[in-house]
């Protein structure tokens, strides 16, 4: 009896182990913040002899984007019997690290969704992405704004990707919460008003309620950096690596942030440390204890969920008459083609279909924001498929767009330097004037090392 049982157990164990080793994990990415897992489409036909080419397509996103893109993948397979697309998708967290490792090891997918700033980092030494001008016979570029392509997708005359959508930094307001606190629904924000109304909001709702919620990294970018750019009217760091501000400007901006914290206008930093990129998961946002947040319009769907009508988009705080609002308007993402792909022609065709074909455009809708292709915008508007909230947001962003940021501003190490010092200030470890000096000194040194 014992022997039979132990033999039986061993067989079961081996079965479990082998099945665990071979199949890919089913990626159940509920939020857009889980780690990246690759997922094979389980409904794909196992007989691969009819499909002569298999292309791999990777992207990040939330559930809505996965659904829409998978629908596109399936439809493309149905319409094109010689090509099948293998989807590899997951959340934002870890996507870039995985991609760079794949690129270094030569195992990157054929079609890759990338964040726009990455094309600079990834084209410094090697041509990681295909110059789309070389496959122009398969792709219709006319539906894109030439300047947009030139500014954001082209390096040294090489077109390295096509923009999926237009994105910009906008404020997201909870309409009811602000109204109840007697804040004008049509208020046009500037930094002074933000402080004033924030105090009003706090006084009305009391403890544990704040007008603005943003992570420390977001406050550094959308409040601290924008405040400086608007006050000086200059770029933060220009293309030559020169700073557009001095220690005194930084000090003023830091002092403003301290005011926001001391007057309980913004959620305290101690409560935000674990929530960078995840503010929508913060209990205070979920429980409607905060009035607004500032972020890229493409993130709004995760913030509002099903409750789109509770919210409206607004222009972020801007100092009237400034030369540089600082507001970033840029492609939401780019779709690029791996320069090492074996099937460049086939991939180019997929890319064209993705951007320009009516059926695909309808399937993909606005899962990557308002499309950058005006052909697509036309199709979707006719279908009433564009969410009002997001359409409004993009319009506001385009209206308030600032000077295009240099590549230095998006550099990871430089960003980390900014965040570190802003954090120290927010935790009252160093005072604003000290911080201003340290920021300028360290920044200059760091930029020099990168030149």
């Amino acid at each position: 009896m014992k022997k039979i049982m132990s033999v039986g157990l061993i067989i079961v164990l081996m079965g479990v182990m082998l099945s665990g080793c071979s199949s890919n994990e089913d990626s159940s990415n509920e939020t857009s913040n889980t780690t990246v897992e690759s997922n094979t489409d389980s409904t794909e036909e196992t007989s691969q002899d009819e499909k002569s080419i298999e292309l791999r397509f990777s992207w990040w996103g939330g559930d809505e984007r996965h659904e829409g893109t998978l629908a596109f993948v399936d439809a493309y397979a149905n319409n094109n019997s010689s090509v099948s697309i293998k989807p590899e998708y997951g959340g934002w967290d870890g996507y870039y690290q995985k991609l760079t490792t794949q690129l270094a090891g030569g195992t990157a997918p054929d079609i890759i969704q990338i964040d726009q700033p990455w094309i600079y980092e990834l084209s410094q030494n090697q041509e990681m992405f295909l110059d789309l001008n070389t496959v122009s016979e398969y792709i219709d570029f006319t539906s894109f704004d030439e300047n947009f392509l030139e500014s954001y997708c082209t390096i040294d005359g090489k077109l390295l990707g096509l923009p999926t959508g237009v994105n910009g930094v906008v404020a997201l307001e909870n309409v009811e919460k602000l109204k109840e606190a007697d804040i004008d629904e049509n208020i046009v924000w500037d930094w002074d008003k933000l402080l004033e109304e924030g105090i009003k909001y706090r006084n009305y709702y009391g403890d544990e309620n704040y007008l603005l919620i943003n992570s420390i990294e977001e406050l550094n970018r959308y409040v601290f950096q924008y405040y400086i750019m608007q006050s000086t009217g200059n770029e933060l760091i220009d293309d030559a690596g020169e700073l557009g501000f001095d220690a005194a400007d930084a000090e003023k901006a830091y002092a403003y942030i301290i005011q926001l914290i001391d007057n309980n206008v913004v959620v305290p930093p101690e409560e935000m440390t674990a929530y960078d990129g995840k503010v929508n998961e913060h209990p205070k946002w979920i429980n409607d204890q905060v009035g607004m947040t500032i972020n890229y319009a493409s993130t709004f769907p995760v913030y509002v969920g099903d409750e789109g009508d509770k919210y409206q988009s607004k222009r972020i705080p801007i100092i009237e008459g400034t030369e540089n609002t600082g507001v970033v308007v840029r492609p939401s993402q780019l779709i690029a083609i791996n320069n090492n792909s074996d099937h460049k022609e086939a991939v180019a065709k997929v890319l064209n279909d993705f951007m320009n074909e009516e059926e695909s455009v309808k399937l993909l809708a606005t899962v990557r924001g308002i499309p950058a292709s005006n052909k697509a915008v036309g199709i979707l508007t006719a279908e009433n498929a564009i969410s009002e909230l997001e359409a409004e947001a993009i319009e506001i962003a385009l209206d308030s767009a600032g000077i295009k940021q240099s590549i230095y501003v998006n550099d990871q190490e430089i960003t980390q330097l900014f965040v570190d010092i802003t954090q120290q200030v927010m935790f009252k470890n160093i005072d604003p004037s000290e911080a201003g000096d340290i920021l300028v000194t360290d920044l200059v040194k760091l930029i020099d090392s990168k030149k």
Partner: protein
Amino acid sequence: MQKNKKKDRIGYLYILPWIVGFLVFQLYPILASLYYSFSEYSLIGEAEFVGFKNYIQIFTEDRDFKNSLIVTFKYVIYSLPLKLMFALFIAMLLNMKLKGINIFRTIYYIPSIFGGSVAISIIWRFLFSHEGLINQLLAYINVEPIAWIGNPNLALYNIGLLTVWQFGSSMVIFLAGLKNIPEIYYEAAKIDGASKIKMFFHITIPSLSPIIFFNIIMQMINSFQEFTSAFVITKGGPMKSTYLYGMFLYDNAFKYFKMGYASALSWVLFVIILVFTGLLFKKSSMWVHYGDGGDM
């Protein structure tokens, strides 16, 4: 003579798979990282030899290096004894002869299987955030919410709890060790009228000392390299108070694309761990007793 040669050849053939694996997956990466530590390598370009530049920069210019070392040392000093004491305590409990004790042993081992993951980070935030479960429970006894993860002075001790919670492997080894202590020692001590505490300190601990020594070495080496708890819960914040050396290395390698610099950092860590391990070995003869009376 010929027969021996043939036997040797067969022997080598048997261990060939391991040798190949060792050369490809262990020796080559180690040598490669040594080479990279003397170069600048951005992962997506070519490696450029720069001599000692990385090492000099580490020791003279990098502020984060000093901070991360201090944070990591604090982490090791705090979490290592705690984890081992906990593991030993649970092992002793699980050493009791009760019906169904095996089920408990499995249950207590489960946390170690979770490792570091996004699921863990979500649970951690659920428990320890400002509105988390722990603070809610504290509210019942009228204690103000504590910023477990948000307070720079507390965060490190908080993420240390993750590794303490995953004490399973140490516990299992202790359990095995406990089972090997001959019963007659305890019986003899009982007859002589020794209290339980005396028995613990004079029989259990000395008999377990090789195992304790082993666990200290293994867990210390792991603690110095700890990465997941910092990455998954606090991302090194707030204000770099949980910026463990492992995270610092990771950022340099995969965020800033400074593979060469990161390789240099990893070799520095290697030397540090080597030194501490060596020290522990040297001092071990003072307190570790092997059953056969022999020395290391």
